[in-house]
């Protein structure tokens, strides 16, 4: 997903302005020029200048505003891309309740399926990897990975 320089410059300009506007609401320190707002204001100002420079360099090039990468036109790839991030959300939500074992096996299986690992191999692989990671983090490094519904068999 490639944006035209003029467009990305404009977005950076807007972002920089928002930073400056927000920073101006910070309280100023009595008798001092260097309050909490000074540094963010300078950064925001820098972003505004960069945005302007980028927009200026991209002017009149005739490049399309927005150019989609090849993968965006392939539903399978878009699905894979979404799954990577959805899987992370799933882990964060589920790990407390289901526990590490079940969550990790589902987490791995979903992605392996999406990436085209042969089906009969997926669950054994996911189980094996989960066991290894659990051993490394839980037993060796003593990270308290949650047990969730498997609390009864916890070791």
């Amino acid at each position: 997903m490639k944006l035209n320089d003029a467009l990305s410059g404009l977005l950076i300009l807007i972002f920089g302005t928002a930073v400056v506007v927000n920073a101006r609401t910070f309280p100023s320190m009595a008798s001092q020029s260097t309050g909490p707002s000074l540094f963010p204001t300078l950064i925001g100002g820098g972003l505004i200048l960069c945005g302007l420079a980028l927009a200026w360099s991209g002017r009149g090039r005739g490049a399309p505003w927005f150019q989609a990468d090849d993968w965006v036109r392939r539903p399978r790839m878009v699905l894979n891309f979404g799954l990577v991030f959805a899987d992370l959300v799933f882990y964060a939500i589920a790990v407390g309740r289901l526990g590490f074992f079940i969550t990790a096996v589902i987490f791995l299986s979903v992605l392996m399926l999406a990436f085209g690992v042969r089906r009969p191999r997926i669950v054994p692989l996911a189980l094996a990897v989960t066991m290894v990671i659990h051993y490394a983090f839980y037993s060796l490094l003593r990270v308290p990975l949650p047990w969730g519904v498997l609390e009864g068999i916890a070791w």
Partner: protein
Amino acid sequence: MVGHVILAFEQVFDPFVLSVVMASALFGLFVGSIPGLSATMATALLVPVTFFLPPIPAVACMVTATAMAIFAGDVPGALLRMPGTPASAAYCHDAYLMTRKGQAETVLGAGLVYSALGGLFGTIVLVVAAPSLANAALRFSSFEYFWLVMLGLTSAVFVSPGHPIRGLVSLMLGLLIATVGFENPAAYPRFTFGSVDLMSGLQLIPVMIGMFAVSEVARYAVSADTPIEVPKQDIGGIFKGQGTLLKTYPLPALRGSVVGTLIGALPGAGADIAAWISYAMSKRFSKTPEKFGTGYIEGVIEAGAANNSALAGAWIPALVFGIPGDSITAIVIGVLYLKGLNPGPAIFIEHPENIYAVFIIFFLANLLMLPLGWALIKLAKNILHVPRAVLMPVILLFCVVGAFAMNNSVFDVGVMLAFGLLAFFMEANEFPIAPTILGMVLGGMLEQNFVTSMIKAGGHAAAFFDRPIAAGLGVAAILIWLSPLIIARLRPLRITNH
């Protein structure tokens, strides 16, 4: 001092530390040899592990893994024409053509030998330069530190590939991220939008894992995975003929090591840029520049030494000033703080044994590279067959366990996810990632020293140039900022002169 050195040896040659070194060496070799997994990513993935280790093994883990990964990147470069890490990209073409000519042993052996030699050279410079720099740095005030950080950030922008404006945007973003939370000189919560999680700021580790590892998995997810064809030929004695090579090309090996160490020490530029510059330099000074790009060993030697020496070079400013020399040391600095090994000149006086331990680990890692690298080359065919469709989900699980494990917070997973997405789109639009991380690591330090200096100076900007070293650093930083304008000014003059 002798007492401290002995203490350092005892710390390193402890069975637990040695087993950590061995395990991280294998991890580094594996990650480095898989195309698409970089040395920076190896470090980011190790952070959650180091979180639960004592300080010395934690440092040992990262030093060893990165040194091995940078060498291991040469192996798929030579065999598949796919650099294992970006640091091997510069000479990948030459290395692959040599394999095609039936010289796989020579090029793989040279990659290994000169990686180790470059690494050892960089380590010696680190050992010599860091303590004396630290001695000088003891006298630095906030003015010197302010300019030092400015100089570091400046070189990060100008050395990063692509247009400086894009590097600058990336840097500003990192500085902005560093302002989030109440940990600032005024202790006022900035950009928290009422969120309790944002009060203590955005944590470096989930951001790093997101930007360097999650984004890479996402990039894999949208790429067409082509099955890897490993050449069938057997690989024999890789050390044969290396002595002759060393006699033929002593100068390129030395030049590569020197340039690599210097580029590594420059903030923002690491092993990959060191390799590109060294390769170009090798071609420039070679007696036979026309052979470059046709499967020729000279550039492989020079750039292969450069990328490993850059790793050690990057630790010089990291240990002495807390200013990372590359994105790997940016991560390392985060870990050093977590472990209570705060970088800076003070650690050289208060805990010299820890610094000596770091030096010893560097030597150990580069020596261990020879036998382990030999084994990797022998096993390369099997390792390169590991399907990435299995590997990538495992890496992602590692990321999420790591981001989660440190604070058990869902918020950190969200941060990792958001920055993974951001890095993915930044790279797609050719914005470099390294300056963001550098800005994030150095933002707090920059503001702290700026505010302290302003208060000391009573608001008079001229005070920033009152002390000689501060003035020198300040002028250097300003000159680099102005350099594009100066060059643009000089260019028409030169044309008219001709």
